[in-house]
């Protein structure tokens, strides 16, 4: 699974992109975020307030219940502040 991080999420986690192999209990966005929170202090800090974390799977915005699979591209980012 390819993970992408943007804006201050990228800065806090310390990387823009990584490939991870989550355990079987990670089946949807919500369980993926819980699992990522436990991967270290940078992740815990970046993901401590999930109300300001948005997720896209394969380039579409998705809710926490959306399934994730091993070949997916999953992006985590703050609310958009474009234009």
């Amino acid at each position, binding site marked *: 699974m390819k993970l992408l991080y*943007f804006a201050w999420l990228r800065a806090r986690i310390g990387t823009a992109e990584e490939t991870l192999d989550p355990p079987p209990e990670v089946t949807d966005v919500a369980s993926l975020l819980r699992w990522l929170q436990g991967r270290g202090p940078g992740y815990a800090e970046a993901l401590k307030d999930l109300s300001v974390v948005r997720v896209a799977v394969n*380039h579409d915005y998705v809710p926490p219940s959306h399934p994730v699979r091993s070949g997916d591209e999953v992006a985590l980012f703050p*609310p958009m*502040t*474009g*234009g």
Partner: protein
Amino acid sequence: MIRVQREDFDPAAALAELTRGNHRIGGVASFIGLVRDVAEGAPLRAMTLEHYPGMTEKKLAEIEAEARRRWPLEASLVIHRYGRLEPGDRIVLVATASPHRAAAFESCAFLVDWLKTKAPFWKHEETEAGGRWVEARVGDDAAAARWTQE
């Protein structure tokens, strides 16, 4: 047409291209977004727009297609820059062309509101106090929400 690019653009050439040879067009509405010189009251030195390559283009194309479903448009164009920009620099151009002026105005405002809230861009501002990521504003969400209540 959608263009996401680091380089500056020429609004004149873009607008001329949009309407060239199409005599069904009665009105062209456009919006140019520029970098202001203040950020939350402090002088702004520069800002950097980060985006999500691939997804940005996809979302912009979806938004443009939605505008063309809602309004009778003859042509439309979105050019959005990313990277480091200074006060006075152009950020975005949105232009819509229609036989009727109301359709041109409404679709242009619709696209701009969506760009501000739904396109995967994040703004980092540099002032004398240092750098900070801009937080989403409630007003922007409210402007975009108008369009889903209709």
